C-alpha cells in the first residue's frame, strides 16, 4: 500500500524532472531562435545550430539523474 511518503517521493522526483525540463526549454528557446537567425544568413550553419540548440538538454538529464537518485535513495530508506 502506497503511503504518503511514497507519494512525496514520487512528487519530488516529478519536480526534479519538470523544473529542469522547463529550464531546458527556456534555454533552448533562446538558442534555437538565434540559431534560426544565423541559418537565415548562412545555410551551412544548420549543423552547428542544431548542436548548439541541444546543449542545454544536459540540464534535464541531470534532472532525470536526480529523480532516479531520489527514488533509489529515498525509496530504499
Amino acid at each position, binding site marked *: 500500500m502506497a503511503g504518503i511518503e511514497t507519494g512525496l517521493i514520487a512528487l519530488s522526483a516529478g519536480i526534479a524532472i519538470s523544473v529542469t525540463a522547463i529550464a531546458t526549454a527556456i534555454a533552448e528557446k533562446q538558442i534555437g531562435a538565434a540559431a534560426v537567425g544565423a541559418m537565415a544568413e548562412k545555410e551551412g550553419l544548420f*549543423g552547428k545550430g542544431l548542436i548548439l540548440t541541444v*546543449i542545454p*538538454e544536459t540540464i534535464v*538529464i*541531470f534532472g532525470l539523474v536526480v529523480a532516479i537518485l531520489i527514488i533509489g535513495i529515498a525509496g530504499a530508506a
Partner: protein
Amino acid sequence: MFKPERMSKLTVIGPKTVMDVVINKLYSLKIYHIVDHKKTEELDIGSPLAQGGDISDILIKIRALCTNMGIDPAKNEKKAAEGNLTQKEIDSIRRRVEKVHAEFDRSMENMKAADENMRKLDEKRILFERLRLLGVDIDSFTDYSTLSYIVGIMENVKDIGELKRELNKKTSKYEIYHAYCEGKTIIAIFFDVEKKNDIADVLARRGLSEIDVSGIKGLKGDAWKHLSAAKEEMGRWAKEKKAIESAISGLKKNERDFLIDAEASLSAEAEKAEAPLRFASTEKTFVIRGWIPTKKMKSVTDDLDDIAKGRIHLFSEEVKKDEDIPIKLKNPRMIEPFEFFMDMYTLPKYKEIDPTFLMFLTFPLFYGFMLGDVGYGIVTLVLFLYLRTKIKGDMGRLVNAMIFGSISAIIFGCLFGEFFGFEELGGYELMHVLSRYEQMNELMYVAIAIGVVHINIGLLVGFYNELRAHGFRTAFFEKISWMVLEAGVAVIALTYMGYVPLQKWVGFVIVALSIIMIYMGEGAKGIVELPSIFSQTLSYARLMAVGLASVILAVVINDLSGELFHAGIGGIIGGTILLVVGHVINIGLGLISPFLHSLRLHYVEFFTKFYHGGGMRYVPFGTRDEQ
C-alpha cells in the same frame, strides 16, 4: 589515419611566356593548393590572361540564356570539364551562343507581339459582344455634326427608368439603348451635341464608366460579323503562339547539352584566366606559392619541368612555424564517411590528431547504445541502405556513417533483448545481458562508466597533442592534472564507502595536488572549470536517458495497442493503426535524438579535451570550391 595528409610547400617561378602552359598543367593535375598572394610593395599580383574578358562575356551570355530558358547548369553530369579550349573553339562557341541568343530573342519578341495582339483582340471581342447585345448597328458609331453619343457600363443590373427620368429633366432629345450582361448594365446613349455636358454629368453621377469605342469608327455591318472575325483572328494568333512556344522548346532541347557543356568548359577557362590574380608577379615573371601532398611532390615537379621544358624554377621552401597548412583528411575508405562530422565542426590543425577514427569507433557505439533495439535497428538499416542508393556527395557520407550506427543499434538491441520495445516474443523472453526497462540504475552506471573512459581517452589524446605542440611540461599540467583530480575524487568516494582501507585525508591531498597542477597548467580558467569535468562525466547519463525514453515510449505503444486488440474489430483496427503510427514516430525520434546526442557528446564533452581545430581546407586548383 590519425594525421591529415602530409603537405609540402612548392613555389613555382617562371617567365610570363610559359605562364599559360603552367596554369593549364596545374589545372588538369588538380592537386596544387594555391596560396593567394597579398599585394606587397615589391610584388604586385598578376593580371588576368588576355582572353579572360572575352570568356567572361560569353559566360555571362550563356548563363543568362540558361536562366531564361530554364536550364540549370549545375545539373551537369560530367562536371569535370577541363577547359583546354583553343582560340578557335572559343570563337566557335561564341558564334553559336550568339546565334542561339539571337534566335531566342527573336522568339521572345514574337511572343510578346503575339501576346499584345491577343490582348487587343480580346478587348475588341468584349466590345463587340456588348454592342451586339445592345442591338445598335456598328456604323452608328461614327462622327456626326449635331449628334453625340456615349457608350458605358454600370456595375450591377439597374433599372434605367430612373436614369431616363433624370435625363428628361435636362433634355428630351436623346435616345437610349440598354442591355444586361454578366450582371452589369451596358448603355448606349445618343443625344444632341449641345447637351453633352449635362448628360455626361448625369451619367457620371449615376456611376457610369465610359467605354472607348473610337477603335471601331468607320466599321460597317453588324456586330455579330465583326465578333466572329475577331474570334477567328484570335484563334490564328493562338496557333501562332503555340508555334513560337514549340520553336523555343525545340531550341532548348537542341542547345541544352551545348550550353551546359560550354558553361562548364568556359567556367574552367575563366578560372584559369583569373588564376594570375592569385600569383605574385613582376613585369616579366610570375611566382606561385602553394601546397601539394608530399607523396605527389616528385611526380608534380617532374610534370611541370617537362611541360615548361626547364624554363621554370621549382623549389620547396622550409615550412615556417605556425604557418597555415591546408588540411586534407586521410582515412581508410570505411572511416571516410565520418569525415562528414569533422567538416561540420571544424577541420583539425596540421599537427593535431585527426579524431575521425575515434569518432568512427564511438559515434556508432553511442548511437547504438541509445537506440538499442533490434527492430528499430533493422528498420533504420534498411532505410539508410535505401537512401545510400539515392543520395550521393556530402549527405551520402552521413548516410554511410548512419549505416554503422544502425548496425550498432541492432547489436545493442541483442544485448538489451529488445525488439520493437518487446522484451519477449511469442511467450519466450528474449536473451539479454542488461534489461534497460528493469535495470535503470545499472544502465546509468554503465553510461557514466562509458563517459569516464571516453573523457579520459580525450585527455590522453590531448596530452599527445600538447606534447607535440608545447612539450611535456604543458601537456602534463594541462591534461594529466585532470586525471589526477578524477583519481582523487574516486579515492575520496571509495574510502568513505569503505572499499579502500586508506586514511580519509589521502583522497583530499590528491585532489588538492591536482588543483595546484591544474592552476599551473591552465591558470585561473582551469580553477573556474573544475566542476565541469564532473558535469561532463555525468552528462553521459544521457546515454541512459535518451535510450530509456525511447524504450518506455515503445512499451507504452505496445501496451496500449495490446489492450485494444482485445476489444473487438474496431479495437483491432485502432490497435494496428496505433502500433504502426506510434512506432514510426518513435523511430523518427530515434533517428534524431540519439544522433544529436551522440554527436553532442563528441563535440562538447570529448573534443573539448583535446581538439582545437580551425584548419584550412585543402582546395586544389582545378576543383571548384563547393563551399
